[in-house]
């Protein structure tokens, strides 16, 4: 477990600049909250808040799709895997690192959102929405990591977009039950559809399903990665 923790913390450290870029949006939300005239525009504030959620998922995919490739390309992966670290521990470390990054962002977003949206009517279940967002991010990142074990970042991102996008389009076209296939979109949609006027319930079933799928995707990524050569050129 110690090795997994070290790899996770190392991942966050290595990705500190993209995480910082992500955090700038949260700071921007906070700054908007300080401007009285803007803060009173409930629709705009809520739109900005929801927008952050989409950025969170996009960054989670970016982190997942590029993590292995970057380490292989720089050859830094060799020094890590030359230690008593199994491939599944390595993948776990990356995923936990992404979860930490996502948690930093989501919790900051939740805290800022609780404050800036307090004026028009504090959404009582904002932390339920944040939990949905975090699970959507983790599930999206798990899909991206799975594809990154066999594809370069560009193709891994495209494959992830298709894998997450097909259930999303099917949900919009044919009904919400399609969203349960890979519920990243359905969970994100909880945030996107939120309004002060409409009271929504916490989708516990979807959250559990997302968690189970993330574990299955982690197992699949570990299994594939343990059969891949990591020391050959990635270009």
């Amino acid at each position, binding site marked *: 477990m110690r090795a997994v923790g*070290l790899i996770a913390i190392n991942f966050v450290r290595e990705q500190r600049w993209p995480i910082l870029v992500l955090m700038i949006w949260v700071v921007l939300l906070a700054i908007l909250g300080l401007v009285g005239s803007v803060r009173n525009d409930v629709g705009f504030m809520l739109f900005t808040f929801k927008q952050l959620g989409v950025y969170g998922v996009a960054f989670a995919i970016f982190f997942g799709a590029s993590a292995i490739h970057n380490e292989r390309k720089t*050859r*830094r992966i*060799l*020094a890590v895997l030359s*230690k008593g*670290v199994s491939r599944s521990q390595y993948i776990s470390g990356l995923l936990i690192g992404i979860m930490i990054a996502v948690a930093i962002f989501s919790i900051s977003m939740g805290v800022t959102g609780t404050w800036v949206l307090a004026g028009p009517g504090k959404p009582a279940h904002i932390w339920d929405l944040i939990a949905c967002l975090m699970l959507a991010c983790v599930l999206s990142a798990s899909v991206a990591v799975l594809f990154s074990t066999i594809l370069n970042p560009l193709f891994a991102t495209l494959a992830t977009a298709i894998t997450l996008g097909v259930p999303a389009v099917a949900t919009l076209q044919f009904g919400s039950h399609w969203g349960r296939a890979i519920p990243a979109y359905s969970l994100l949609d909880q945030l996107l559809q939120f309004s002060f006027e409409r009271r929504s319930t916490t989708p516990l079933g979807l959250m559990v399903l997302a968690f189970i799928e993330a574990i299955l995707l982690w197992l699949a990524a570990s299994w594939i990665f343990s059969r891949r*050569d*990591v020391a050959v050129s990635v270009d």
Partner: protein
Amino acid sequence: MPFALEFENISKEYRRFTGARIAALESFSLQVHKGEIFGFLGPNGAGKTTAIHLAMGFMRATSGKGRMLDKPFGHAPTRRRVGFLAENVALYARPAEQLVRFYGGLNGMSGSLLKKRAGEMLEWVGLSQEARRSVGRFSRGMVQRVGLAQALVNDPDLLILDEPTSALDPLARVHVRELLLRMRESGKTVFLSSHLLSEVELVCDRVAILKKGRLVALGKTSELLQSGDKSIIVARGVPATAFPDATLENGVVRFAVPTVSQRSALEQVWSLGGQVISVNPEHRSLEEIFLQLTRTSGERNGSA
């Protein structure tokens, strides 16, 4: 006797994007005994790094199998007893001491022992003054020294070094040589891949030479160096012109003859009224052997 490292009939093929296959290793067998310093030589592209990466579990063999410290290649817990320095080592840009502790932590080390070992290793590689500086600002030689420190932090039973001194200055090379000898004294095994043949000649108990994925020479360094087919005869009281390519110095004639003609050459010295001072097998440098073996097409497969 269990081996520290054992390759058993291993082949490795790379597949190109076009589907073409390139053989990096072909039916490669080799055993490295525990407690020896083993030199692994070969020209660029011979398959040395591929063999090392297979042993470290970075890649899987197309066929064949291997064992490292009595466990199959790729067994993660076994790697806790192994130190590895990659060719052109790449490390994270962070303070040297933090980095060595990070790699030690990945091997299950922690607390005061890890802190002590990290400090000792950085001191040993001559970087204790730079321990708080980021490795990202280090020169290539300094990065290689940090690489050595991280490979040694867990006090490994088996040390695998791929070109460990390529970026080091002569003083640091001597330092590494001393380390290797010290490791052998304490019963550890060193597997050293290097292009610096003089260095290998000085420290290695046995060497293997690889060419195009096949083993072309394997044996004790001392035996390989004496494996020439010529004898050096030193004589007195004979004219240097009597023997082809003979040199005359202080009245002593020195010349080389094929070992099969040694007896007739000695008889010629005596018939000319000369006196034989010494007859010794010709010692070749490892470089000469290396060049001869890697330039010729004759290949053999084997193990010892």
